């Protein structure tokens, strides 16, 4: 089983819980979600406890993540968007830390489960819809009717805009999930090549020598995966900000 590249995504029950026929077991996915939240909280609490005017390394990391999210939110949703800052910052930290925790060998990657990323995406879109209707009422539906469109085309264009809007949570969740899943499978496959080449007896001395090639690839892919882990968290945050901007100013 050790060589099965999909094996790492299996969900195992740690504490089986059943409530009224519903399976609410505490699984390894739940464990790593709790771990993600714990690591995030610990990092932010510990690093900001000193509150020095001259920041320590940890404090400046926390400040950098704050500044990063704040400037992203400000540039795409304006200053009013800052009311969503706690939400966006939590999302960013959760996705980033979950991705980074997944980079440890033998650890479970929470964001490689589509239901997790879909739940995060629905949280974003739900916020956009609820806030949009609460703030603008029926004017929020103006989002789907671009003005300056000839009357005959309005139903068609509205239809297309609605499909485009509905595709947002799908693309948001599928992107994060697919990138993490594909990256981890690729890593596992190349790491598996190292073992099978080095252990193969039919190749003689040739096997161990050529097994260096997939090893180099694995090292390079690990670096790439760290980049992807960060970029996906960034993309998720940027898109969240853009969608929140639509909820704040739905005037197109």
């Amino acid at each position, binding site marked *: 089983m050790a060589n099965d590249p999909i094996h790492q995504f299996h969900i195992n029950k740690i504490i089986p819980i059943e409530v009224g026929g519903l399976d609410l077991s505490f699984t390894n996915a739940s464990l790593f979600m709790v771990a993600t939240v714990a690591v995030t909280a610990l990092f932010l609490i510990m690093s900001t406890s000193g509150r020095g005017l001259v920041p320590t390394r940890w404090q400046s990391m926390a400040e950098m993540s704050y500044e990063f999210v704040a*400037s992203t939110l*400000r*540039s795409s949703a304006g200053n009013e968007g800052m009311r969503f800052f706690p939400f966006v910052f939590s999302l960013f930290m959760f996705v980033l830390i979950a991705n980074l925790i997944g980079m440890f060998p033998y650890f479970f990657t929470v964001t490689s489960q589509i239901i997790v990323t879909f739940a995060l995406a629905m949280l974003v879109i739900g916020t956009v819809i609820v806030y949009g209707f609460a703030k603008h009422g029926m004017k929020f539906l103006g989002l789907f009717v*671009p*003005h*300056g469109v000839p009357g005959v085309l309005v139903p068609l264009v509205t*239809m*297309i*805009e609605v*499909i*485009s809007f*509905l*595709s*947002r949570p*799908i*693309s948001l969740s*599928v*992107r994060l999930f*697919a*990138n993490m899943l594909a990256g981890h499978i690729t890593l596992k496959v190349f790491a598996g090549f190292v073992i099978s080449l080095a252990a193969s007896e039919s190749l003689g001395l040739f096997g161990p020598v050529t097994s260096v090639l997939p090893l180099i690839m694995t090292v390079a892919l690990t670096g790439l995966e760290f*980049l992807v882990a960060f*970029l*996906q968290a*960034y*993309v998720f945050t*940027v*898109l969240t900000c853009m969608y929140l901007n639509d909820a704040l*100013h739905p*005037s*197109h």
Partner: protein
Amino acid sequence: MVSPRDPGQEEGKAGPPDAGLSKRMEQLSRSLDAKRQTDERNASSGRRRESDARGFALAMRLSTEFVAGVLVGGGIGWLFDAGLGTSPWGLIVFLLLGFVAGVLNVLRSAGKLADPLDRERGG
């Protein structure tokens, strides 16, 4: 950012230490405000600065944007057919609309098609 004070006062040695500190804090917050404003101006005028990270992020976005449009269009069409028994017309029509929505998504995220909102703002 540039203050006309002499450097002796900036060190906080001339006045009582509290006054020096609050003066420095005030100065700091003023220069931070100034920096934030210039940052905002830079962000709105020239978006090329962070092009490295953004370019990579954009590349990751484009493919899924298109696929998601098609998937949602197909899904709606399939549900439409299942509900009203108009198979296969709902699937055909909504799949085509999904393709259009996918292209719209891609053009929008590539910035080829400006949001009407941005155009009004004069961006």
